[in-house]
């Protein structure tokens, strides 16, 4: 290809496709002047290109059939097996012993231990939600496995909340180190790409009311159920996040014992 006095097949093709460096291009052009046979081939190849464009170029200008609309295909997917898969994958973050209701007890300010928990949850949220390639370790598609794995590692029976009715589908989850224990991080995503995370740690504390805190554009809703501490974090209005937190908690009561 770099022989100065001959033109290789690769040279000729690269010449036609505009892939030669300027110096080599000039050299090939000079050699072509003395090679009618190669000039003829180049002309034939270019005609092939023009024929292909005449045959198929118009396809790109046709109106797109409705069945090929990505938005429509995505909507069909969400309405069809996508939702079923999420539902079958298991629902609701639950304690084996059940959980009492506390919503309505009012919202109170977090204490020091709670502040640590919220800080860890926010740090995990900030670290993982922008992640494109590996936002989670185990995908939401493997929901049953995810619930089993995290339950074992946290030594609690977890059922993963289904937030699909609220417009958030499960991306998946990962295991994280936390102060004195392990933590589970569950990630959900809305149709428009907003991500929220639910951070869960084993806890021996009492049930508490929901507490809301906001900092740096992030809102965190935290609560303790009987043996779990939970923090839901997102860059969303506090009303939205509270609604999602209640949905997460609400599904606790509906979940069957496992």
């Amino acid at each position, binding site marked *: 290809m770099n022989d100065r006095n001959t033109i290789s*097949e690769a040279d000729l093709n690269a010449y036609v496709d505009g892939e030669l460096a300027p110096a080599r291009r000039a050299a090939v052009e000079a050699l072509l002047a003395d090679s009618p046979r190669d000039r003829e081939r180049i002309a034939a190849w270019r005609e092939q290109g023009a024929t292909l464009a*005449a045959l198929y170029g118009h396809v790109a200008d046709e109106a797109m059939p409705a*069945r090929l609309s*990505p938005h429509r295909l995505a909507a069909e997917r969400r309405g069809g097996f996508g939702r079923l898969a999420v539902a079958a994958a298991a629902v609701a973050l639950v304690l084996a012993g059940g959980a009492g209701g506390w919503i309505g007890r009012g919202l109170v300010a977090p204490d020091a231990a709670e502040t640590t928990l919220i800080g860890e949850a926010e740090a995990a949220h900030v670290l993982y939600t922008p992640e494109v390639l590996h936002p989670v370790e185990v995908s*939401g598609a493997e929901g049953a496995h995810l619930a089993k794995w995290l339950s074992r590692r946290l030594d609690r029976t977890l059922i993963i909340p289904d937030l699909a009715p609220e417009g958030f589908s499960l991306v998946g989850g990962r295991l994280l180190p936390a102060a004195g224990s392990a933590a589970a991080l569950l990630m959900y995503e809305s149709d428009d790409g907003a991500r929220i995370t639910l951070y869960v740690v084993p806890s021996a504390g009492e049930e508490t009311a929901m507490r809301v805190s906001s900092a740096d554009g992030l809102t965190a809703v935290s609560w303790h159920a009987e043996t779990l501490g939970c923090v839901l974090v997102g860059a969303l209005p506090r009303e939205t996040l509270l609604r999602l937190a209640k949905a997460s908690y609400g599904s606790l009561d509906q979940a069957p014992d496992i």
Partner: protein
Amino acid sequence: MPGFLDDIETLVPALRRYARALTGNADRADDLVQDCLERAIAKQSLWRPIGPLRPWLFTIMINLHRNDRRRRRAAPEAEALDVLPFEPASPPSQGARLALAETAAALDRLPAEQREALLLVALEGMSYAEAAGVLGVPVGTLMSRIGRAREALRALVDGTGPKLRSVK
């Protein structure tokens, strides 16, 4: 997600064009594009592709097409190649029409790997680097496939080289 879907939508015309040339059949081409889009949307819900979408989508579609061809070989069925894949606004002369039909038929006779490579570069205007990435082969391999495809097409259409039978 809407951003991703909008981005995909801008690539649908090129995917349809390529699929039409690859399969030579309008219905099968659109089926292939639909499979490709469904696969991409399913994958994207968890794993957004790194880098540009175009090569990613073309890779998905080519892999689906290869699977499809394997399946067809296992269970052959009557398959019509669109003789002329469109009705031109102004009918070309009989000679020109024949040249188009001949090229379409010749393209269909090329080995699949040559057809895939040539169309990415000559029809879709991809650089060698991008096309090689789509096919997962070194640039040198891509170039040799393109070179062989061009010579084979020329031979088939002009009759300047080995005859039809020997190409495949």
